[in-house]
C-alpha cells in the first residue's frame, strides 16, 4: 500500500505526483486527464515482476493484439528516449518501490553497425535502424535493495515472449469495463474463507430475493433468487455483475490493492451508496487499498454520503487529476472538503 505515487512519462502523463493517499481513493477528472493511466501505473508497480502486465493493460484498454507499433504508445508523446518511471512510497514509511520501463531495442544488424548507426534519407532526415521490439522493466525496492530485478516483454515470431519473469505473490488487481472476469478462482477463495454471506448480503441490496451463490460446472457463478432453478449471475444485469465482481475481488486481495476503473459502470445510482458502504467496510476489515475512478456526479455523491455515515472518514480521499498540455496535477479533497463542496453543489470533477 502506498502513501504517495509518482509517475513520469507514462502515456498521457509527463509528470504526476499524487500524495497523501488513503485506504480508499476516488479519482475524477476530465477525459484524457490521466485517471486510467494513473491506475495503470500503480498496476505496473505492484506487478512489476510480471512483464506481461503492460500487454494485459492494453487488453483492458481494448487493444487486444500484440504489435511492435504499440510499444511506443506506453511512453509520453511516444518519446522512448525518456524512460517511464513509477515510484510508490510505501504506507507509513520512507521505503519506496520503483519501476523503470525502457524500450527494448532489437539488436542491430552487424553489417550495418560496421558502417553507421543511422542512414540518411534523400530528404535529409535521419532515421535510426534500431527498432523497438518490446519493453524492459527494472524493479527495485528500498526495502530489498539487493534484489533489483529486470524483466522483459517483447514480440518474437509474432508471439509475445517474456524474460526474467519472477514468481511473486499477487499484490493487486485491475478491474475495468474490459477486464476479463475471473469468477472461478475468486469465488473459491471467498467460499473457503466463509465470506459468502457477506457477498450475498451486498447482492441483496440489488435483488432482495438473493439467498445463495454457487459455482457452476463451467466456472460461472449461479445465483438463487427464489426461482425453481439457479440462474447465472451474468444474466442478472450489469449492476449485479459489478457488485459481485467488486465483492469477490476485495475478498481475494486482502492486504493488497484493488484498482477499479469506472466504478459506477453498470450501477444504478440507488445502489452506488451500498457499494461504497461495502467498499469502505471491506477496505478497512480486509486491509485493501482501493483506487477507483469515475465520471459520475451521482457516484461522487454516493461516495460522500457513504463516507458521512462511515467510521472511516479519515481513511478516504477524493482526488481530481487535471491536465493541460504536458502539465498534470492532482487536487486533493479531504472527506470534509468534499462534503462542503457537494453541499454547496460546487463542481468537483
Amino acid at each position, binding site marked *: 500500500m502506498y502513501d504517495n505515487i509518482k509517475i513520469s512519462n507514462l502515456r498521457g502523463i509527463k509528470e504526476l505526483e499524487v500524495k497523501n493517499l488513503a485506504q480508499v481513493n476516488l479519482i475524477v477528472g476530465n477525459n484524457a486527464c490521466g485517471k486510467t493511466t494513473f491506475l495503470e501505473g500503480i498496476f505496473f508497480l505492484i506487478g512489476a515482476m510480471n512483464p506481461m502486465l503492460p500487454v494485459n493493460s492494453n487488453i483492458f484498454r481494448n487493444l487486444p493484439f500484440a504489435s511492435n507499433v504499440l510499444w511506443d504508445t506506453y511512453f509520453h508523446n511516444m518519446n522512448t528516449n525518456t524512460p517511464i518511471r513509477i515510484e510508490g512510497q510505501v504506507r507509513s514509511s520512507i521505503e519506496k518501490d520503483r519501476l523503470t520501463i525502457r524500450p527494448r531495442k532489437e539488436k542491430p544488424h552487424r553489417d550495418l553497425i560496421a558502417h553507421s548507426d543511422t542512414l540518411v534519407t534523400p530528404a535529409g532526415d535521419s532515421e535510426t535502424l534500431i527498432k523497438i521490439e518490446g519493453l524492459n522493466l527494472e524493479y527495485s525496492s528500498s526495502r530489498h535493495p539487493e534484489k533489483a530485478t529486470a524483466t522483459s516483454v517483447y514480440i518474437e515470431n509474432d508471439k509475445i515472449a517474456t524474460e526474467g519473469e519472477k514468481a511473486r505473490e499477487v499484490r493487486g488487481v485491475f478491474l475495468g469495463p474490459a477486464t476479463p472476469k475471473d469468477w472461478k478462482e475468486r469465488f473459491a477463495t471467498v467460499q473457503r474463507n466463509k465470506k459468502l454471506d457477506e457477498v450475498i448480503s451486498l447482492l441483496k441490496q440489488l435483488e432482495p430475493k438473493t439467498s445463495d451463490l454457487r459455482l457452476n460446472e463451467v466456472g460461472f457463478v449461479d445465483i438463487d433468487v427464489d426461482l425453481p432453478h439457479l440462474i447465472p449471475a451474468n444474466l442478472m444485469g450489469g449492476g449485479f455483475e459489478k457488485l459481485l465482481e467488486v465483492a469477490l475481488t476485495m475478498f481475494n486481495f486482502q492486504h493488497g490493492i484493488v484498482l477499479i476503473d469506472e466504478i459506477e459502470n453498470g450501477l444504478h445510482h440507488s445502489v452506488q451508496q451500498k457499494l461504497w458502504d461495502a467498499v469502505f467496510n471491506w477496505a478497512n476489515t480486509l486491509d485493501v487499498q482501493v483506487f477507483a475512478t469515475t465520471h459520475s*456526479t451521482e457516484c461522487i455523491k454516493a461516495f460522500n454520503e457513504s463516507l458521512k455515515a462511515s467510521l472511516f472518514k479519515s481513511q478516504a480521499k477524493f482526488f481530481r487529476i487535471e491536465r493541460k498540455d504536458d502539465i498534470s*496535477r492532482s*487536487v486533493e479533497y479531504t472527506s470534509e472538503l468534499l462534503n462542503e463542496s457537494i453541499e454547496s*453543489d*460546487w*463542481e468537483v470533477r
Partner: protein
Amino acid sequence: MERTGPTKITSKKLIAVEGLDEKNFFGKLLPMIGISDFQIIDVGGKDKFKDKFPALLLSPGFYAPDRTSMVTHVAIIRDNDEDEAFKSVKSIVLKTGLKPPEEHSRFANGTPQVGIYIMPGPKIKGKMLEDLCLQSVQTQPAMRCVDSFADCISKLPEQPKNMSKAKVQSFLAAQPEIVNSLGLGAQNSYWDFGSTVFDELKEFLNHLK
C-alpha cells in the same frame, strides 16, 4: 431547457457572499457600476466561510494544472455581526495560503488579489447589509411608516430578534409590488443604489474592474 448541474467557476473575478440575498443584491449592483465579468458565490451563511472558502479554492477553474491562479480577484463580503469579523475572515484567507488585505475594504497585492469587505461598512451604523440598504432609502416617505412601525413593535413584550431585518420586510411591504427579501428588493431597484451610503462599497467593488 437550461442545463443544470454543479456550479463551476466561470469567471476570473469571484465575489464570495453569505447567501442568496447578497447574491441577488450584488447581481444587481455590480452591472450598475460597470462590472460585468464576475461570478457571485453563495457560501450559505456567515459561519460557513471557514469551511467553504478552502473548498472553493479546490474547485476546477480556480487554479490551473501548473498551479497558477486562473482567478484574478476574490472579494469576500460578509456581515459584521460578530466581534472582529475582519480579523476572522483574514485568518480564514491566511490558512488557505492566500494573502489577505491588511485593511478593511482593501485588496491585497497577491495572486489572486483578495479583498475583504465587512457590511455595512465602517461609516454606516449597524451590522449588516440590511442597515446599508435601509440607510439608502432613509429619506423616502415609506421609511416614515417603517420607522413608526419599528417604534411600535419595539415596545412589544416579545420583539423581533433582528430589528434591521424587520424594517427591511416592512419597507418591502410598503412597495407597489411586494417582494419578500432584500435581494429581490434589490432586483426590483427598491434600494437607492445612487445613494452616497453605497460609495465606500462601490469603491471596494471598483477593484474588480
